[in-house]
């Protein structure tokens, strides 16, 4: 009951006219960003973050979350109408969404995607509301040792579950952590890693600079290289009859959608997993459990609903560890976390005690964001069809300008603008060679917490390294982290053994 009281207070905040307006602007912007090929929620949040100074912090985070949500809905639009996923999270939606569009059922596919996203979003927000307080209560018992173990656990999920090259993943994590150490030493205050004696490095490297570089400039460079010709937009119109028919069809898919929502929520909580694998897993399982698996890939409405519920649920799932533990569940939430720190809010269990208005305002705004996202999504479909015809060069030039000016605005140093261009080019090259970018951004955001908790523990325990394993909660985290770390090695050994057993190969 107490929960409902909190939520009621939250709605009092989120239903204020200014916040409703912000949610509407956010989801509309998010839908457009998500619908643009090459740009997803993380790019949208990175590019828009510097200009959120215009509103107070609580509204700024609501705006960014609304963009995050909108982008998750929007990703499906280009998957269906262009056959190009708006973001990697919507890859699985192309499998059946594109064939449906080619069969002249683009409108139905869009309705299915929007309705499924709504279901996924809503179920996951309810789960979020239920889990947030207990998780924050557990996290209250955390000391520096537990914090360190938890951050380490977050990083090892990339090694064990990320699916990328293990060596390259470790390099990117270490690079992010080293870059987070630039500036002044946390404890002694001595300057360190001041490259080329540039005074700009004294204030450290902002996560925003890295994010705008990689997800703004780098992403556009990557898209310039990979997109050779303009894609064909499938026209789509939605009539009320189609909407009614679509909703009736979607109503039959409750099993697929509830499963996708639960799966997405829990997979989304893991830093290394997130919306893309959640959507792919949900698609795979829906196919496996379907009575007509042969229709998958040829325009099955279930094949659109399954990934769309999961990717929306995952985006909510990734907010949970960010808000309750201070450990982001995805690159986008890492940016939200960085933004909150910039505004003077420290995510983590104390936030629930010190700033309940903010926390519950934010949680309740997720409900309203979901509702507005589905309404705006369906209402503006003709506009999206028009926007997708926008020449790519127009979009690129405007994103570049926003990156340069947005990168300059927070610190007002040209040094940061140079870093953005540098990170953009380096990020583009590294991405081409399969170096994963998410661990880099997460490491830069979590680096200071990791170093501080590590050194605080060692100072308090007089250098006893065993302190991390001896404490029960931190010991458990360390054990799981160790398991994730050896997982790729075990897989490798298994592969080698199998090869030895089958010499004919």
């Amino acid at each position, binding site marked *: 009951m107490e929960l409902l009281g909190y939520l009621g207070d939250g709605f009092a905040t989120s239903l204020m006219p200014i916040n409703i307006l912000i949610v509407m602007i956010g989801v509309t912007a998010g839908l457009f960003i998500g619908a643009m090929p090459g740009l997803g929620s993380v790019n949208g949040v990175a590019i828009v973050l510097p200009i959120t100074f215009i509103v107070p912090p609580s509204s700024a985070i609501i705006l960014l979350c609304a963009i995050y949500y909108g982008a998750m809905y929007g990703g499906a639009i280009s998957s269906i109408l262009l056959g190009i996923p708006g973001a990697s999270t919507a890859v699985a939606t192309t499998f059946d969404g594109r064939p449906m569009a080619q069969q002249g059922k683009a409108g139905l596919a869009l309705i299915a995607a929007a309705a499924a996203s709504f279901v996924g979003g809503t179920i996951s927000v309810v789960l979020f509301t239920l889990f947030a307080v207990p998780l924050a209560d557990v996290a209250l018992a955390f000391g520096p040792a537990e914090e360190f173990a938890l951050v380490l656990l977050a990083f090892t999920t990339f090694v064990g579950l990320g699916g990328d090259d293990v060596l390259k993943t470790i390099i990117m994590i270490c690079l992010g952590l080293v870059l987070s*150490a630039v500036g002044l030493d946390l404890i002694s205050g001595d300057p360190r890693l001041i490259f080329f004696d540039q005074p700009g490095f004294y204030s450290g490297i902002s996560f925003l600079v890295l994010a705008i570089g990689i997800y703004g400039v780098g992403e556009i460079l990557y898209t310039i290289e990979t997109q050779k010709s303009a894609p064909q937009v499938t026209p789509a119109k939605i009539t009320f009859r189609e909407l009614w028919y679509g909703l009736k069809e979607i109503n039959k898919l409750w099993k697929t959608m509830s499963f996708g929502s639960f799966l997405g929520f829990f997979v989304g909580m893991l830093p290394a997993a997130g919306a893309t694998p959640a959507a792919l897993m949900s698609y795979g399982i829906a196919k496996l459990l379907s009575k007509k698996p042969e229709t998958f890939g040829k325009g099955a409405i279930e094949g659109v609903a399954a990934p769309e519920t999961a990717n929306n649920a995952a985006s909510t799932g990734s907010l949970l560890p960010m808000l309750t533990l201070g450990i982001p569940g995805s690159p986008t939430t890492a940016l939200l976390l960085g933004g909150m720190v910039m505004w003077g809010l420290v995510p983590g269990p104390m936030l629930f005690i010190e700033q309940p208005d903010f926390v519950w305002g934010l949680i309740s705004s997720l409900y309203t964001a979901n509702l507005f996202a589905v309404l705006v999504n369906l209402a503006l479909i003709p506009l999206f069809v028009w926007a997708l015809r926008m020449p790519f060069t*127009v979009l690129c030039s405007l994103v570049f300008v926003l990156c340069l000016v947005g990168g300059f605005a927070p610190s007002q140093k040209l040094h940061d603008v*140079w870093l953005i*261009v540098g990170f953009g*080019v380096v990020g583009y090259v590294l991405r081409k060679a399969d170096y994963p970018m998410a661990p880099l951004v997460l490491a830069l955001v979590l680096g200071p917490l990791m170093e501080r908790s590590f050194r605080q523990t060692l100072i308090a325990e007089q250098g006893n390294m065993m302190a991390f394993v001896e404490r029960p909660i931190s010991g458990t985290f360390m054990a799981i982290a160790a398991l994730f770390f050896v997982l790729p090695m075990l897989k490798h050994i298994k592969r080698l053994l199998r090869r030895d057993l089958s010499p004919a190969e």
Partner: protein
Amino acid sequence: MLTADRVLAAGIMVLSVYFMWHASALPIGWNGMTGGPGGGAFPFWLSGIMFLCAGGIVVRSFKDSAPFAKDDTPFFDPDTLRSVVVVTLALTATVAALPFAGAYIAIPVFLLWYLKIYGKHGWVLTGALTICTPVFLFFFFEVTLKILLPKGWTEPWFFPLYARFF
């Protein structure tokens, strides 16, 4: 692809050594003064791990089972590499021009080049975006957020606007 993979890994090894050299300016072992690891320890040892992993990639690349071992495709797509290089150069030139020509010259010139010459769009679209973008930037950043963008020698042109809006 394989060569590029090796070159990048070697580059990361060099970068790690550079980081380690920088980090070693502070104590990298146990700090007797404050207790706990020294200020340079965290970046130093992490750079060490980076060095070892990058070394691992180089060593691995000589095995048959290495990623990209049988991948003969060029690292950069020759058809579109030119576009990427040209856009990067234009972006660099724009940033270089910011301190002296100011945002309100550098950005419109960049847009004009990008839309008209690189994107081959018509004058109406190019003109509209080239003029509207700086106007929007001025009202959004300078008037609303009170964040002054660099203006270089164009600063005196803005005095009447400052007088009007601030």
